[in-house]
C-alpha cells in the first residue's frame, strides 16, 4: 500500500460573496423576520437610493455573530424584537451611541436607551385573552390577580423559554420585588390548565376550544388571527376570545418593543442612521401598526382600526425597558424554581 488511492478531492471553494460595502448601502442583521421588514426596506431604498442587505435570524444568534465578527463585521445595524436582547447587545458593547435629533424627538425616552445606543421601533403589549363565553371582563383586573384561587385550572400560557414571558416576569420583579414575583409565578403555575406548550396563537386557540378560560398573549397574534388572511379556524377561534389590558389604573399593561441600534463597528453609520430615522417616520410607523397590529412608538401616529377596536388607548407600564434586560436572568431562575416549564 505504498501509493495513495486515487481519491479526487472536490475542492469546491464557492468562496466569498463579498460583504456589500458599496458607498450607498447599509447592512442589516434582523431578528424581525423578512416578511415583516422587507417591504419597509424596499420603500427606504426607493426613497433614498440606499441598498439594504439583509440577514435574518434569531436575535441571540445574530448577537453572537456580531460579537465574534468583531471590528470587521459587515453589519451596520441590528434589529431585535424585544428589549431584553437590545440590552444584551448593548452590554456586549455591540452598539454605538447615535446622536440624532430626529430620533430623540420622535422616540419617547422610556422606549429608547439612555445612552442613545438603541431605539424602540414598535410596541407590543402582553395582555390577557379571555373567553367571551365563560369569563366576564369584570372578573379580570391585573396580572397579579391571575395567581388567585379563582383561576385555578383556567390559565393557558406558553413556555417560560419564551422571551416575552421572561420580560413580563422581569417587569413584575421590577415592580414588586423578587419574592412577590416568585409567589406570583408559583400561583400561576398552580392555576395552569395544562403544561405550557405551543405559541401564543395556540393559547388563544385553546381558550376558544375550552381548554382554559384565560391566556397571556401578545396582542399582534390576536390581530393576525382576526385578519382576512387568517385561516378560517383561527378566525373562528378569535371570534370567541377578547383581549383585556391588565393593570389599568395601576402601573399599566406590560409592553415590549422591537428596536434597533447602529453597530459599534458600522462601516456605513450614516446610512444606518438614515434607516433608523426612516423607520420612525409616520409612514413606517403606520405600516407597522397596520401590517403587524403593533403600536407605534411615535406619539401621535394612529393605530390601525383593528387595533383600536380591541382597546386603545390604554395605560402602559413605562418601566425603562433596559430594566427588562437586566432582570432577565432573575426571571429565568424564578421560572426554574417554581416549575414553570
Amino acid at each position, binding site marked *: 500500500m505504498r501509493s495513495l488511492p486515487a*481519491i479526487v478531492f472536490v475542492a*469546491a471553494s464557492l468562496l*466569498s460573496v463579498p460583504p456589500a460595502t458599496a458607498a450607498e448601502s447599509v447592512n442589516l442583521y434582523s431578528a424581525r423576520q423578512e416578511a415583516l421588514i422587507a417591504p419597509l426596506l424596499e420603500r427606504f431604498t426607493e426613497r433614498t437610493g440606499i441598498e439594504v442587505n439583509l440577514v435574518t435570524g434569531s436575535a441571540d444568534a445574530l448577537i453572537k455573530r456580531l460579537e465574534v465578527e468583531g471590528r470587521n463585521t459587515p453589519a451596520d445595524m441590528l434589529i431585535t424584537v424585544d428589549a431584553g436582547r437590545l440590552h444584551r447587545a448593548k452590554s456586549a458593547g455591540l452598539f454605538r451611541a447615535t446622536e440624532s435629533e430626529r430620533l430623540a424627538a420622535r422616540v419617547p425616552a422610556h422606549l429608547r436607551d439612555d445612552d442613545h445606543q438603541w431605539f424602540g421601533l414598535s410596541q407590543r403589549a402582553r395582555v390577557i385573552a379571555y373567553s367571551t363565553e365563560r369569563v366576564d371582563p369584570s372578573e379580570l383586573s391585573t396580572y397579579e390577580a391571575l395567581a388567585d384561587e379563582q383561576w385555578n385550572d383556567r390559565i393557558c400560557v406558553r413556555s417560560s423559554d419564551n422571551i416575552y414571558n421572561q420580560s413580563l416576569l422581569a417587569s413584575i420583579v421590577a415592580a414588586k420585588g423578587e419574592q412577590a414575583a416568585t409567589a406570583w409565578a408559583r400561583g400561576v403555575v398552580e392555576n395552569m390548565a395544562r403544561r405550557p406548550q405551543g405559541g401564543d396563537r395556540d393559547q388563544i386557540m385553546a381558550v376558544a376550544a375550552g*381548554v382554559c378560560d384565560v391566556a397571556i398573549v401578545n396582542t399582534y397574534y390576536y390581530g393576525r388571527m382576526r385578519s382576512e388572511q387568517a385561516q378560517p379556524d383561527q378566525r373562528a377561534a378569535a371570534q370567541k376570545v377578547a383581549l383585556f389590558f391588565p393593570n389599568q389604573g395601576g402601573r399599566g399593561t406590560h409592553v415590549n418593543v422591537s428596536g434597533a441600534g447602529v453597530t459599534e463597528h458600522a462601516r456605513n453609520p450614516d446610512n444606518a442612521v438614515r434607516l433608523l430615522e426612516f423607520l420612525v417616520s409616520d409612514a413606517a410607523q403606520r405600516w407597522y401598526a397596520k401590517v403587524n397590529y403593533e403600536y407605534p412608538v411615535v406619539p401621535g401616529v394612529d393605530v390601525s382600526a383593528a387595533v383600536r377596536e380591541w382597546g386603545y388607548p390604554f395605560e402602559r407600564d413605562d418601566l425603562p425597558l433596559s430594566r427588562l434586560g437586566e432582570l432577565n436572568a432573575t426571571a429565568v431562575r424564578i421560572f426554574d424554581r417554581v416549575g414553570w416549564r
Partner: protein
Amino acid sequence: MSTVVQPLTTPAPRGRARPLRPDGWTIGVLLVALAVALPVLTVAGFLLVPAGDVWRHLAATVLGDYVTNSLLLILGVGGGTLVLGVATAWFTSMCDFPGRRFFTWALLLPLAMPAYIIAYTYTGLLDFSGPVQTLLRETFGWGYGDYWFPAIRSLGGAVAMLTLVLYPYVYLLTRAAFLEQSLCVLDVSRTLGCGPWRSFLTVAVPLARPAIVAGLSLALMETLADYGTVRYFGLSTFTTGIFRTWFGLGNAAAAAQLAAVLLAFVFVLVWLERASRRRARYHHTTGRYQQLDPVRLRGRHAAGAIVVCALPLLLGFAVPVAQLSVWAWRTWDDMVTPEFLGLMANSFGLASAAAVITVALAVFLGYGQRLRPNRAVRAGVRVASMGYAIPGPVLAVGILIPFGWFDNTLDGWLRTQFGVSSGLLLSGTVFILLFAYAVRFMTAAVQTVEAGLAKVRPSMDEAARSFGYPGATVFARVHLPVMRGSLLTALLLVFVDVLKELPATLIMRPFDFNTLAVRAFELASDERLADSSTAALAIVITGLIPVILISRTITRSRPGRPGRSWSPGRDAPA
C-alpha cells in the same frame, strides 16, 4: 455464530493498534479530523470557564427533567426506529409482496420531512382545536374533558414525530446490509433447519448489526440534537436546557458544559456499542452471491407486510404532506414568486455541494483508518464525527468563534504588516456554511462509508494486488464498485440533511441569501403554518429527486445483479 462470519484473513482495523508512524495518510487524516473537530473543541473549551453557581441552581431545579426527558426520548425513538426500520428493511429486501417495489423507495420519503414541520402539521391536525378532535366533539356532542385523546404535544408525541422521520436512517442502512448478505449464508442456516424467523434473528440481523447500529446511532444523535420539536411541544430536554441556560440565564459557560455532558453521553453510547462487539467481526466468507429469490408472501402474510410498510409511509409522509398541501393550496398565490425559485436553487446547490464535499472527506477519513489503523487516526475519526450530536445552534457558535478569530487575526496581521485589510475572509460566506455542513453531517457520511469499506474484504485487496494492480486501479476497479451503494447512500443522507438543516444556515448565511428551510422556519416559528407550507412542501419535493434516484441505484447495486465486473451476475432484469 462467529464461525459463520469469521473472515478468511484478519483485517487490520480491529486488531492491536500499531505504533504511530507519521506519514502522509496519518497526518492528512489528523488535519481533516482536527478541522472538523474544531467546533466541538471550541464548545468543549468552555468547560474551562467557571460557570458560577448556575450548576447548583440547575441541579436543584430543572436538571433532573432535562436528563429524564432526554433519556426517555432516545429510548422511545431508539425502540421505534429499530422496529420500524429493521422490519421494513427485511420485508422489502427478502420478501416479495404486492407493492414491494414501490415501498422500497417510498419508505425513504419521510427522510425529506424536517422534524419540526411534521410536529407542526400533526399538532395542527390532532390538537384539541384541530379538525380531528373538533369533528369528534361535533359528532358526539362532547366538550372539553368529556373524552380522552392522546396529547400530541407530549413526550410520547415527540417520540412518535421523531420516530416517523428518523426510521429511514435505520431502514436505509439495514436494507443495504440485507441486500449485500450472501444468500449462501442464509441458505446454510435454512438447511441447518432454522425457520425464517430464526434465520432472521440469528443470522441476518447479527450480520447486519453494524449497519443497524450505524443507522440507529444516526437517528439517536439527531434525536439528542433536536430542538424544534421539543421546544414546540414544551418539553424540557438537554437541548432546550442548553438554550435557556445560554441565553435566558446568560451563562455561556454553563450552557457549553451542558452540551459537553450531552457529548460525553454520546461518547459512552458509541463506546458501549463498539465494546460489545469487539470480538465479533462481521465479514462474509464467500463472494458467491446468488440472485435473490425473495420469499413470496401470500394472503394474510402479504397483507401483513403491506400494512407494516404502509404504516410508516402513511404517517410519516402521506398524512403530513396532505395537510401541507391543503394549507399550500390556500396560500399558494402569495408564496410562489420568482424569488421562491431562487430559494429552491440555493437549497439544491448548497445541498449538492455539501454532499459531495462531505462524502469525499468521509472517504478520505475511511481510507486513512483502513490503511493506517493506528490509535491516533482512529481517535481522530471518532472525534471528527461528533458534530452530529451537538444541537445545531451550539455547533454554529462553535464554528463562528474560531472563524471570527481567524479572520480578525489575519486582518490584524495584514494591517500591521502591509497596511491592507482582508476584512472577514471566510465568515459570512458560503464556504463557512459548507464547512458547517461537513462538520454536522460527517458522522452520517463516515458511518455509511465505513460500512461500505467493511464490505471490501481484505482478501479482495490481496487478490487484486497479487495480480500486480496498482492501488489506484484496485480502488477504481474493486473498491468503487463494491462501495457504490454505500457512497450513494452517504450522498443521499448528507444531501437531504443539508436540505433540512436550519440553525447553522440561519446564523451563518451571507447577506440576502435564503433557503427553503429558512423560509419555512421563519413562517412556522411565527405561527404562520399555512404560509410556511409551500416552502416545506418544496423541501420535500426537492428531497424526493435524489431519494428516488439513489434508491434505484442501491437496489441495482445488489450483488448478483448484472453489470458487476467482480461478480458472475445473471441476466435477470433489475
